[in-house]
């Protein structure tokens, strides 16, 4: 079972945090901080795995991957496969987000907070990976956005805003 998914930037600012078992806010913050502490002490060119028992309690492992300025972190227990988890991150981080945003950058995740959550909900439900086809994920997300757009006439973000966002 997957225990948590986190996205944080290389300065340790959380960009997305989803815990599949409830944790109070303070605890979440502490975990994020400690994970970042471990991540930034890792040297270059080492494995993407960390034994996270000291942070998340018994039977927990952590897999992370680094894209541009973001760390994608997944915490899970022994019923999952580390290498496969790495691919889930790949799936979420590279394939799906790339398709959504084309050249995904840190701010895309912040500004599209609810959309990222929607994507994540499509992939993982209740701590189990539900969907691994990125086309399928995209289709579901687009369907949702279309429906939502149909029920609300909403103006889009002005172009000017997106120009500084993509810096």
């Amino acid at each position, binding site marked *: 079972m997957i225990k948590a998914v986190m996205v944080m930037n290389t300065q340790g600012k*959380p960009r997305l945090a*989803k815990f599949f078992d409830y944790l109070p806010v303070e605890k979440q913050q502490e975990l994020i901080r400690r994970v970042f502490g471990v991540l930034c002490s890792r040297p270059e060119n080492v494995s993407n795995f960390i034994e996270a028992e000291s942070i998340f309690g018994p039977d927990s492992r952590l897999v992370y991957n680094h894209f541009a300025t973001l760390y994608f972190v997944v915490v899970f227990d022994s019923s999952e496969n580390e290498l496969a988890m790495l691919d889930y991150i790949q799936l979420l981080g590279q394939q799906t987000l790339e398709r959504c945003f084309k050249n995904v950058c840190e701010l895309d995740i912040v500004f599209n907070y609810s959309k990222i959550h929607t994507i994540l909900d499509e992939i993982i439900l*209740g701590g189990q990976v539900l969907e691994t086809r990125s086309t399928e994920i995209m289709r579901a997300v687009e369907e949702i956005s279309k429906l939502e757009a149909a029920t609300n006439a909403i103006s889009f973000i002005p172009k000017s805003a997106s120009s500084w966002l993509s810096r």
Partner: protein
Amino acid sequence: MGSQGGFYQSKEFLDLVKSIGEARSKAEEDRIVLNEIETLKRRISEPDIPKRKMKEYIIRLVYIEMLGHDASFGYIHAVKMTHDDSLLVKRTGYLAVTLFLNEDHDLIILIVNTIQKDLKSDNYLVVCAALNAVCKLINEETIPAVLPQVMELLAHPKEAVRKKAIMALHRFYQKSPSSVSHLVSNFRKRLCDNDPGVMGATLCPLFELIARDVNSYKDLVISFVSILKQVAERRLSKAYDYHQMPAPFIQIKLLKILALLGSGDKQASENMYTVVGDIFRKCDSSSNIGNAVLYECICCVSSIYPNPKLLESAADVISRFLKSDSHNLKYMGIDALGRLIKISPEIAEQHQLAVIDCLEDPDDTLKRKTFELLYKMTKSTNVEVIVDRMIDYMISINDNHYKTEIASRCVELAEQFAPSNQWFIQTMNRVFEHAGDLVNIKVAHNLMRLIAEGFGEDDDNADTKLRSSAVESYLRILGEPKLPSVFLQVICWVLGEYGTADGMFSASDITGKLCDVAEAYSNDETVKAYATTALMKIYAFEIAAWRKVDMLPECQSLMEELLASHSTDLQQRAYELQAVIGLDAHAVACIMPSDASCEDIEVDRDLSFLNDYIQEAIEKGAQPYIPESERSGMLNISNFRNQDHHEASSHGLRFEAYELPKPAVQSRIPQTLIASTEIVPVPEPMYPRESYQTTMPSIPSDAGSAELKLRLEGVQKKWGRSTYTPATSTSNSTSQKTVNGTSQGDGASTVSSMRETYDSRKPQVEVSHEKQKLAASLFGGSSKTEKRPATGHKAAKASSHVVEKSHVPKSSMEVASEKAAPAQQPPDLLDLGEPTATSTALQLDPFKQLEGLLDATEVASAVNGAPAASRSPDIMALYADTAAGIHNKNDADLLSGLSNPSVTNMPGTTAMPQVTQSSSKGPNPKDSLEKDALVRQMGVNPSSQNPNLFKDLLG
């Protein structure tokens, strides 16, 4: 930049994010966020906010909470949003509540109704949103409210909904298996779903169900194998391909399930060989996901009934992993090696170089994994190298959690495979010095016991040398600043017991050091207590040797301080010390015989030596004892009835209670069990034992006042105990004779003894001698043969006999059950014939103890119940109270005695006059020869000096 439809955010939010992103410090960020919270608080409670605005506020709240600030003021608004008709608003509401609330939050009750309604919605997106919320927000109590709807959704036309419904049901099962236990068959049904995605989702709950109960799912082996075959043969649609692999995630899940189902089941495993072999061949090892599947195949192969061909393929893959440049693959390779090594130990040899490389790798994760592998492959031939390496690594890391783990592993390996005493003590010293406070206290007690008992090298001389070297090393180590408390306790104990034994150091040297310790660690009461007792021992030995005792001035001031201490324990120890110093040599030699820490202290838990006294008292018209379990009922009744009815009623009740299984007694057992495994009270154990001994003589005389008088009287009266003992122990010994006999017979075959811990590794051929010694020390030399069975009976019966005396043989039954009991640590197939862990022996005890406890109480009740008359229950209640309490406390104390030899020793020496045998405690030559043979048999050559790393590690 995403700007599609519903995921729009306003300029304000962008500004907020931007300013937080640009914040230079945490303080600045906090200020911005607090500002934002103020704004939101104000705005969110305004009337008539447009939905779109409201949605944005909520998203901002979620964001704020993710940054670690409290957004609870907005929770209720998020809940309100879930009630909205608009999908956009509703989804946002659900998202927010799943992130904000936990399943036990008060607001959940407001959402359940909405969820129920939404689960029935025509719009499948609404249903999906509700199912998402169900997974997160429904707890055990609310499951029934949504369960019917979720069950209906299992047959929903949309596959996305079916998948989510399965997950919701799985979640229910995780939260409360009983509430959906009648519905788990639905998972089996969904396995045949037309949609592979739904089938894949079903594998998650099935995996968990199978992990909990393998046998009920053996019938599915064929189905799983055929699914896996179809997947591997690319029968699924192209959409499931990932990096040119056919549905790899489903393959992984299936392999995991097969590993569970095939474990230890030859027939089931045979069905899997072909398909697993196929996957080994077909898998593309160039992609990450391909390797993930290969790794899972190895896991499966190492779990199911072994097949040589598959093992070969697995070994090939492992060597590919280990040779790879990728750290990820090396990590997986080491992990896989650790799994496979259990089945084919020889595989490690091919990879020794790779393993050593991983040990030197800068990647900490890989290093740890490698240590785990080494731990798994430790045997007596390589233990020195491995433990050395582990300790070096332990010293180098800061992570306390991992330090603890690796320290306990070092201890475990050292205890299991130690080639020599010297090495063991040195290793323990290193572990304690660097991770002292992280080590389980039991380890310290084991070390003390080892030093006291020695493992009997060639002669007593070796033990003496061992102790001297321990004393010497401890005196040296005491120079170091800041030693861990546990280690100091060991040091104090050893110095007290053996500091002056070999005459190398004078009493003033040792006492000076001990005073320094007590002073330097003045806020650690346990250490101070140990130091005080050590001081007492040193002085007692001096007095007993007719030497003049001069108390050092610092020692005197320490005593003065302790006499006025707030800790009663310390105070008592100080007073005892004072009292001992005032005695003459003969008395001191009796109280504190030198080097007698290994003598066993027999505790007569039935208080049977009081039988005569009781008989006498009853004849004079005293009340007989009524066990607590019977008493409580009687008291209730007697409160209601008057004196006239009383006698009849109590009589009847007592009679009936004999048939009852004594619930009160049983209910106490778990408590003692806990005590046995967990609690190792360090300073406390003095009390129960003390009160036990002191209470005894006074009970029958006047139960009421006994409790008040405890401490004052005990000091004198406890001396009388031994005179009572013989009479009773012979009385109930006969029935146990046979047990004793068998255990002796069994003991002769050394296999069982080898499986024991160090301490019990004492060959059991020795048993009779040990017993004689024990008997002699307990009952005096006069009637040896007669009393021997009595001790044996005690040993066989007493719950914690291992605790009390580790030399006592275990009966064959016990050894058998120990073998049968699931071993706690991974079985070491490399050295199959060699000893198992210390912990197994410990773990077994509670059961034994349980038997013993019941037995003991039965005897007690029988003895006490025999006299027929019963009168006013009040006094009896008091008496029974104390007696019951004694049983209880006594158990706990005995248990603590196991892990805490010093405790067993200290009260014993202060209070138990029986322990008079002083000099010949070391193991005798026969014992030592046996031990030596064992060591050699294990293939240890203690003199070999770390010749070749590889050879040691892997040869």
